[in-house]
């Protein structure tokens, strides 16, 4: 970000004299029209919105680019234009990736706020107490830029499978017995815990023994259908398992039905109910 002040004027002169005439490769084509230059102001021309959102990693990335190109004067943003653009965006939001574009909007709003605070006359007291409104933005830009660079550095590291390869020879395992596998029940439980926490933070407490017994029963119901084409519904219930067992079996059957894993058939009203597998003919 050095030399911004120096180059700013130069850049303004250049863009002022011959805007959009640099013979560059188009970086994007929007609806048949090539875009050879990035937008010269902060906000994105609506028809290029989608392309530009894809080309940049976010509002900070875009802002950095604009600063690098010396096209943007952080300190002199036309507020009227920003507001107009802002409203246009909101109209576009309906058709676009709202979540991503919202982040750009936040940035535009932040710039507008900076500008407006800069316009307010300062008293001496203010100057003492109030931080420069640009400070936070500049800090964030710098911080982002460091990691943008770090990401490029990491990409430049020699990588297995791209730049270097592990040297290996064939090992004849003729005399070797079955491989030993390193896995404990802890590994399994922790793996499940982690994968569920990742999938849904609320789930951590939800897996109870009851649920597992239903899962177990679902498996054995399906298992019985692997060997027989149909299974009598009644035969699933065992007296010795008691009410609890009957409930588990019933829940298991309901779960399987819900998931289209089995079908129920009944030949006549009040007749015997049979289970059959649902997709077995594949």
């Amino acid at each position: 970000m050095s030399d911004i002040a120096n180059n700013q004027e130069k850049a303004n002169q250049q863009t002022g004299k011959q805007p959009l005439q640099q013979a560059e490769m188009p970086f994007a084509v929007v609806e048949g029209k090539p875009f050879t230059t990035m937008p010269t102001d902060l906000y994105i021309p609506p028809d290029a919105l989608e392309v530009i959102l894809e080309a940049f990693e976010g509002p900070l990335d875009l802002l950095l680019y604009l600063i690098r190109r010396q096209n943007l004067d952080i300190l002199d943003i036309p507020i009227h234009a920003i507001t107009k653009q802002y409203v246009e965006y909101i109209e576009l939001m309906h058709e676009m990736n709202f979540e991503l574009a919202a982040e750009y909007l936040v940035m535009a709003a932040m710039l507008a706020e900076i500008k407006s605070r800069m316009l307010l006359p300062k008293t001496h007291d203010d100057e003492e107490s109030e931080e420069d409104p640009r400070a936070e933005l500049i800090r964030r830009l710098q911080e982002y830029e460091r990691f943008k660079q770090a990401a490029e550095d990491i990409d430049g590291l020699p990588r297995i499978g791209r730049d270097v390869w592990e040297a290996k020879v064939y090992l004849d395992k003729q005399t070797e017995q079955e491989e030993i596998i390193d896995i404990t029940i802890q590994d399994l439980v922790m793996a499940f815990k982690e994968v569920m926490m990742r999938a849904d933070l609320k789930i951590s407490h939800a897996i109870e023994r009851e649920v597992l017994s239903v899962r177990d029963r679902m498996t054995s119901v399906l298992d019985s259908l692997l060997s027989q084409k149909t299974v009598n519904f009644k035969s699933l219930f065992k007296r010795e398992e008691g009410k609890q067992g009957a409930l588990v079996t019933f829940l298991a059957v309901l779960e399987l039905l819900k998931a289209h894993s089995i079908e129920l058939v009944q030949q006549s009203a009040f007749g015997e109910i049979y289970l059959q597998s649902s997709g077995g003919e594949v």
Partner: protein
Amino acid sequence: MELKQVKNIVEAALLAFDEPLSMKSLVSLFPEEEITANDINQVLNDLEVDYQDRGIELKKLSKGYRLQTRDAVQPWLQHMWEQKPKKLSRALLETLALIAYRQPITRGEIEDIRGVAVSSKIIHYMMDKEWIRILGYRDVPGKPAMLGTTQTFLNYFNLKALQDLPSLAEIKDFETLEQELDFDDLKPEPDENLKQTSSDEQTESDQLPDDINQEQEST
């Protein structure tokens, strides 16, 4: 290009690539240099001589050339192989855990929860080991297979039934878990070479005692 450099590149290629390399593919390593099959042959002969006194050798197979370990070093490597149990990848472990706890489950459901594709290799591996099986097909578009665990799986973990799997609510930390399940019975004899599982490094887990694996094999 000097033949010495050709040799280095050919050697590196044989070491980097998993499959045997044919003469044709060895020649094609040098699209811009004028390297002939003759040159490659020369280089392969040189390598063969280099390896004469070593633990590896160059083997010519029908498909091409391959570097492999010599029989002479096998006894030492064998020992290492037996000592070093295969570590299962996280992807495999999580997939197995989801099948165990959420069966019957389809591959698509596993992918939804994990957020990444499940490789066929993983599924085949677990099928081969007879840890999982197909319980049937769901009557939804695509008729996806429903996966579940097997008796072999239960035996492997010394479980009578699926509901004996620890529930998540039970996991406060590793120590409690270990007590509840009495892992001490399963632990190998104290061996100074083996690291104990520490709670923050669950990926580095203990070696399984051999008898568990053998038990599994016998079923």
